[in-house]
Each structure stands twice: as C-alpha cells, then as structure tokens.
C-alpha cells in the first residue's frame, strides 16, 4: 500500500505540491490526470525518490510504502528503487543490446548466474509482450526497435528487477494507437502482480486502465476517487469541467 500524508513539495521557492493526502491499495491501478504543469510527474517521482536528483528541492510530510516512510534516513534509495520501478515518458533504452538492456538491472544488483539472467530476461520480455518480436535479435541494439517496442523494452527492463510498484509517467504519449493499446493491455495484465501508478493526459486511457483516479490542479489534489465515479459523477465541478473538456 502506498500512502502520501500531508505532502508538500518545493522546487526552490516554488510550491509545486500542496498538502496532498492519498492512499493507493496493493494490486490496483491508479491514474493521475490534470492539466500540464499541475505536478503529476513531481508527485509520481516522489515514490522512487527521483526528485532527489534535482537540486534545491524540499519535501515535507510523509510518503509511506507498506507503512514505511521511504524518506527515512534508514532507507536505502537503491533498495527502494528496486522495489519501485519506473517507466518514463520518452522511451529511454540504454545504448546496449536488447538483452543487455533488460539484464542491466539484474547485473547492477549483483546477479552473475548466466542461466538465471537469461531466464529472467525472457520472462520479463514475455510479460512486456515483446518476446515474440525480439527473440531472434536479442543481440541487436535497442535503438533498432520502433518507439513502441522501445517503450515495452523499458517496461521489461523495469519488470526484470521484480519491483512491487510500477510508476509510469505518460508511458504511451509518444506512441501510435496500436502500441498504446498493447501497453494498456499490458497494464491490465500486470495489475495482478504489481501496484501501478500511471500519469496520463488521455481521459479514455485513464478510464480504461485504472481503478482509481486522482485529479490534480495547480499542485493540489482536487479529487481522488474510484475511476467509475470520477468519470460518471465527480464531486467537484472543476473535475467535471476538466474531464468533459470544458476547462478554461
């Protein structure tokens, strides 16, 4: 279970997230929607501490995963990031072979056994629905793949280290409808084993893949509820306006 308690986040003087409270259950898909610049990515990056890489940022409040504050001094960021995988908006494979891209997370975590690595690479590529397309060219560069394939490769790469949570920041924004629907199917299938949080600008996508949806605006969480309710009968007028496209 993921939980945010009174979270405030600052880029220097800029107050990017304002007092956010949210609970995400295990094995659910949560979607974040909201206008550009409202803080969805910032909030998402809190949960694998990627914001730590940006200088001059400050956090107050608590981010908990299974009851443990992930910003506690005793928490190892490296261990956390193994548990909480991330897929970025733009596919970002490494300049390595397809195989090595997926094996990367295993290798940096000290796995040496060749057989084991091969097994996990295959399993991850199957999970990401990419195996059949690449099984004959694992040694080829990842850059030879199409954008949609690269994104699924990045998903496979994240799955290989067996995370429990998967954060996805607009994973399908650079993709065509077919690749997009493949990724949506994938999210649906992965839900059984992972807790998934996805940022999207696509309302249909949010309503198709997610169980719960959070609507952000100007750094505030305006509304957070079951996706069905959110899209049929939201509590707030702002939400209604945004979803129906009457956003000013």
């Amino acid at each position, binding site marked *: 279970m993921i939980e945010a308690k009174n979270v405030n986040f600052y880029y220097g003087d800029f107050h990017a997230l304002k007092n956010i409270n949210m609970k995400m259950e295990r094995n659910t898909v949560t979607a974040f929607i909201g206008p550009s610049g409202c803080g969805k990515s910032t909030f998402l990056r809190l949960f694998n501490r990627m914001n730590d890489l940006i200088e001059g940022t400050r956090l107050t409040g608590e981010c908990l995963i299974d009851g443990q504050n992930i910003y506690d001094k005793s928490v190892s960021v*490296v261990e956390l990031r193994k548990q909480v995988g991330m897929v970025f908006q733009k596919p*970002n*494979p*490494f300049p390595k072979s397809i195989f090595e891209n997926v094996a990367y997370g295993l290798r*940096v975590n000290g796995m040496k056994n060749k057989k084991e690595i091969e097994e996990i690479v295959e399993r991850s590529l199957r999970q990401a629905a990419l195996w059949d397309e690449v099984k004959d060219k694992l040694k080829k560069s990842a850059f030879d793949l199409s954008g949609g394939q690269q994104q699924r490769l990045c998903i496979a790469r994240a799955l290989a280290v067996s995370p429990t949570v998967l954060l996805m920041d607009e994973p399908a924004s650079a993709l065509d409808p077919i690749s997009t629907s493949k990724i949506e199917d994938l999210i649906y299938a992965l839900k059984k084993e992972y807790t998934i949080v996805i940022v999207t600008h696509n309302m249909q996508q949010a309503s198709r893949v997610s169980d719960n949806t959070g609507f952000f605006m100007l750094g505030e969480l305006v509304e957070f509820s079951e996706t069905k309710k959110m899209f049929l009968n939201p509590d707030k007028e702002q939400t209604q306006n945004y979803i129906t496209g009457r956003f000013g």
Partner: protein
Amino acid sequence: MEQSKENEFSLQLKASGYRLRTRMTQQVAFWTIRLLGFVVVGILVWIQGFIIVNGAGVLSWDFLTQAPTEGMTSGGIFPAIVGTLCLVVGSMVFAFPLGVMAGIYMNEYTKDHWTVRLIRVVTNNLSGIPSIVFGLFGMALFVNTLGFGDSIIAGSLTLGLLVLPIVIRTTEEALKAVPDSYRSGSVALGASKLQTIFRVILPSAFPNIITGLILAIGRVSGETAPILFTAVAYFLPKLPTSIFDQVMALPYHLYVIATSGTDIEASRPIAYGTALVLIIIVLAMNLLASFIRKRVSRKQR
C-alpha cells in the same frame, strides 16, 4: 487566364536592382570564402607534399630500424622513434586516467559548484601557458626536486601536464553529450551512481573521450620544448632500459640535425625523413583511434 498568370509569375522572377546587388554580394562572398578554403588546404598540402617529396627518398627499413651513424649524418632514427613512443605512452598513462577522472568529477559529481568553476579556470589558464614554461616547471619539479633526472618519467609527466587540459575538456564535453535520460533510467533501476557512470555513461561517452586522447597524442608526439630539459638526449648509442633513462625523441632529433648537427647540409635528407616519420606516426595514431571510435560507436547504435 493561364497566360496572364504566367506573365505575372515571370514578372516577379525578373530581379530588381536591389536583388541583383544582393546576388552579386552573395557571389563575391561565396567565392572569397571558397578561395580562402582552397588557400588553407593548399598550404597544408604544400607543406605535407614538400616533406613527403623530400623525405620519401631516405625512408627505408634500415632508416627505421638503425641508430644514427657518422655524427648523425647517416644511419637511421630508431632510438628517436622508440623514445617518442615511450614518451607518448608514458604521458598518456599519466594524463588519460587523471584527466578522465577530473572530467567525471566535474560533470557527474559537482555540476555547478565553485570547485568546478575553479578547476575550469585553472585548466583554461593551463592550456594557455607556453610549452617551454612546462619544460622549465618539469625540470624544476620532476628532474631536480623529485630527483628523477633527465628521464622518460620526468618527460612523460611534463608532457602529461601539458595535455591534461585537453583531456579534461574533451571528457567533460563528452559526458555533457550523454543524455540525462540514461542517467535517470539507470538510477531508477537501482543502480548506484558509480555503476551508472561505469556501465552506461562512460561507454556511451567513450567514442568522444577517445577524441581527446587523439588530440593529446598528436600534441605530445610533436612537442619539443617540454622534453628539452626533462627527457631528451642529443645522441644516445643505446635504447632506454628503464623509465629513469634518457631517450632520444623525434621532434628534438629533428631540431638537432636541422640546426646544430655536425654537418647540417649532409644530414638534411635525414631531417626530412625524420619529419615524415613523425607525421606518419601521428597520422597512424589518429587513424587507429578513429577506427576504434567507429567500431565502438557502431556497436552502440
């Protein structure tokens, strides 16, 4: 209808006086630039051609593998070739790891910190200092204070210092060219910073870092002043056996036989031959390095 439209069109195509003038200016500028380009290339070809024509005659297996004889008016330049190679390798062993590490520190660890700005200012200044000053510094520190004497190691360290700024600069530029998405992608998989640098960033920056190495090698193999007081000998009958031995070196040998040999006129062909060998060595190293670079970058694409 069609007709009149066409007329309108052709009317517009007729250039006004202003257009004609700009076109002329453009032509003049274009030809000036082209001419200057030809001049530059021409001078280069001329110099190289001059050396090749004059030096090719003395090039032979014996010239490359024999020591100078008869007061350096005949015989080969083998000891000088060996000496230059020793100095090149020695200086790279020193400057390459150090420069690359400095570049990593500056780009990966402390981006806009004052220490980085300081290092940058210092290295920029360092690269503006005349090489003879490096020679004197090397003599004071390595030869005298540290007591290495005139030796391969003293010369290598001096040359290394000379090219350190080049290596640092190119490493820094190479690392800057690596997209941040590689860094965040790697870190997000639970890789540490060091793992990210060694497994993703350096491999992808490597082809560009090699460029720094090429430039450095080219510079080192041609420099005379830094080794003048730190490493080279006028004439040595035998090859070096340790890094504390003196050596002969191609650029210095060239200088010696061209200006102060026992018989300058008689050793003229040998001077040209030496220059040619020096050029060939630099060229060969460049080709080798760019070959490595191409192979590595092909593997990555």
